[in-house]
């Protein structure tokens, strides 16, 4: 039995997916990154190994997300890919013919436009995190509502309250104001969802043509209130795939299958979960740029470096670990 491993190391969550040779998901793992990407990758690998039948052999590994280079070095990935490409690959496999992908994660949100199965345009939020999962988390916590209850509650709304969605600070004070006026919680939550959707479509979706079918994925897609708000704003149905929260990892696994088509994998085995990895860093003194160079050490030996503009340190390593 063979399988492909996909790893998505994001700012908020670290996800892993193992697919069979046919691309179906055998097992998936969702962990909070908690600012410790190396540990979480190792922990994920342990969970994954425990959940799989012993005879399964991993014949390809792909990594994605903002921690993709780190995860790639640790696991010996066959392909290291940006999250836009992996999300698009996964969505178009789950829903052939998809033309628009709305993706909202913990710290970023993006829109991907596909035409004829190929990415034709994309955009990511630039500086503002007002429309992302962290803000919803924060507001739910403030109202003392579990994030899992957020969606169902919002769906009970009868008259969604209008809330300013352009900036997280404005939105929060607006919400507090409305709450003190006596509006009920479901109406406020539904209003918040609508405000975030408005902000997303204006800020990230800026002028892009949103055609059906539309897929909504990323951690925030769990929130039924957000799905309903998107459907209301777009005027047509929005599809949330069953593995909406691990789509990046799924795409990475699919790309790993493509990348290992005619060659054997570089996967270093589940044993890396027990090895000693350390990330260190230093400021280079070669020129006034004072680049902050990151070093990944395995048992005291440097296995990868990056962060230098000129290549003085990253090119000094003879190993293959070149950063794409």
């Amino acid at each position, binding site marked *: 039995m063979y399988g492909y491993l996909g790893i998505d190391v994001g700012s908020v969550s670290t996800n892993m997916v193992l697919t069979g040779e046919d691309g179906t998901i055998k097992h998936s793992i969702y962990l909070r990154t908690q600012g410790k990407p190396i540990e979480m990758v190792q922990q994920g690998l342990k969970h994954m190994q425990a959940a799989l039948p012993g005879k399964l052999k991993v014949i390809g590994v792909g990594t994605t997300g*903002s921690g993709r280079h780190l995860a790639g070095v640790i696991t010996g990935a066959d392909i290291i*890919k*940006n*999250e*836009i*490409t992996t999300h698009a690959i996964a969505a178009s496999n789950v829903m052939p013919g998809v033309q628009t992908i709305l993706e909202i994660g913990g710290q970023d949100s993006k829109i991907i436009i596909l035409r*004829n*199965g*190929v*990415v*034709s*345009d*994309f955009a*990511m939020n*630039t500086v503002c995190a007002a429309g992302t999962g962290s803000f919803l988390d924060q507001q739910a916590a403030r109202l003392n509502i579990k994030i899992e209850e957020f969606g169902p509650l919002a769906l009970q709304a009868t008259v969604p309250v209008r809330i300013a969605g352009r900036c997280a600070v404005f939105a929060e004070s607006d919400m507090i104001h409305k709450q003190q006026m006596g509006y009920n919680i479901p109406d406020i939550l539904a209003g918040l969802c609508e405000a975030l959707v408005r902000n997303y479509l204006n800020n990230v979706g800026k*002028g892009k043509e949103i055609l059906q079918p539309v897929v909504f994925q990323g951690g925030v897609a769990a929130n039924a209130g957000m799905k309903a708000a998107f459907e209301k704003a777009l005027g047509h149905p929005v599809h949330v795939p069953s593995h909406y929260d691990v789509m990046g990892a799924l795409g990475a696994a699919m790309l790993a299958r493509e990348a290992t088509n005619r060659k054997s994998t570089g996967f270093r085995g589940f044993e890396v979960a027990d090895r000693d990895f350390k990330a260190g860093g230093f400021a280079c003194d070669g*020129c*006034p*740029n*004072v680049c902050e160079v990151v070093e990944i050490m395995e048992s005291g030996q440097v296995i990868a470096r990056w962060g230098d*503009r000129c*290549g003085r340190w990253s*090119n000094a390593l003879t190993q293959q670990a*070149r950063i*794409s």
Partner: protein
Amino acid sequence: MKVVYPHMGLMWICIKAMLEYLNVDVIVPPPSSKKTLLLGVKHAPEFACMPLKLNLGNFMEAAELGADTIVMAGGCGPCRFGYYAHVEHAILRDLGYQYELVVLEPPQKHIGDLLDKIKQITGQQSWRRVINGIRFGYHKAEAVDKLERMANYCRPRETTAGATDRALQHALQEIINVAAPEGLPAALQRAVEIMDAIPVDIHRPVLRIGLVGEIYTLLEPFANQDIERKLGSMGVEVDRSIYLSEWVNEHLFLGLAKNTRSSKLVKQKAIKYLRHFVGGHGLETVGSTVFYAEQGYDGVIQLLPFTCMPEIVAQSILPRVSAELGIPAMTLIVDEQSGEAGLVTRLEAFVDLLARRKQTEEALA
């Protein structure tokens, strides 16, 4: 008098050659770095664009090396750059620097004034020698542009990673070392041989991307986070819409040197979308995008410093150009940020988009 001028990519090579040929003492500021930017950001108005901040940093670093006279180009709007020399001079004066300022205004409007300013810098040199000096600088610019073009061709095709960048440094050194016009052709010959010796795989399929946008961010690798090198290593052959010698020819020689790609052509290409001069290189950005689409390039990337008005005008027009001519275009705005992850993610995704698109097109053909 020790003269300093701000950095803009490899421009320093040409101006240094010209001024030293005319026996002017030149101080080349240290290459723009995070320290330069830090100095600039600290003392410049927050809403100014990044070029102003880097210029300011360059002057402050050059002052430590003994520079006492600033030479800068001027301009007549709507781009704010025309005023930067004076603003920067005023800021430096407030900070206690004793700089003389010489602003070279564009010759269209102020030819007499320009000649006076040149005399002020070059002193008692004959006009004949001054002209030879300018010509020497211009020929160096042409040489540098030629080498950069060769590097952009080789980088995506090199068989050893980093070979192109190492060769380019050696080749540029040949050009830098030449002190008199007579030596330039032979030096260029040697430099070209160095570049020709880079082992390349000419059959490797590459993508072609045109870089358009604001001149400073296009020419200064520190400002654009080395975008040409990054794209090159991703297997992309890059062409810039502006090269130094072309710009000098257009703006300082009023197109006197023949056989260069002229901005007149590019402006004609823009007519369907934009009929006005909007300052800076806004018009050229639109026209060049049309030009690259017609030349069969796979995509276009627009670069601009945050708050750049002319490029914002162009940015709002590009989606229409892109849709009508079927060329994907992406806009990147640069500012103080030094984290590269965001830029690399966007570049990678854009390159993937172009590669997949090309695959499908080829499969259909």
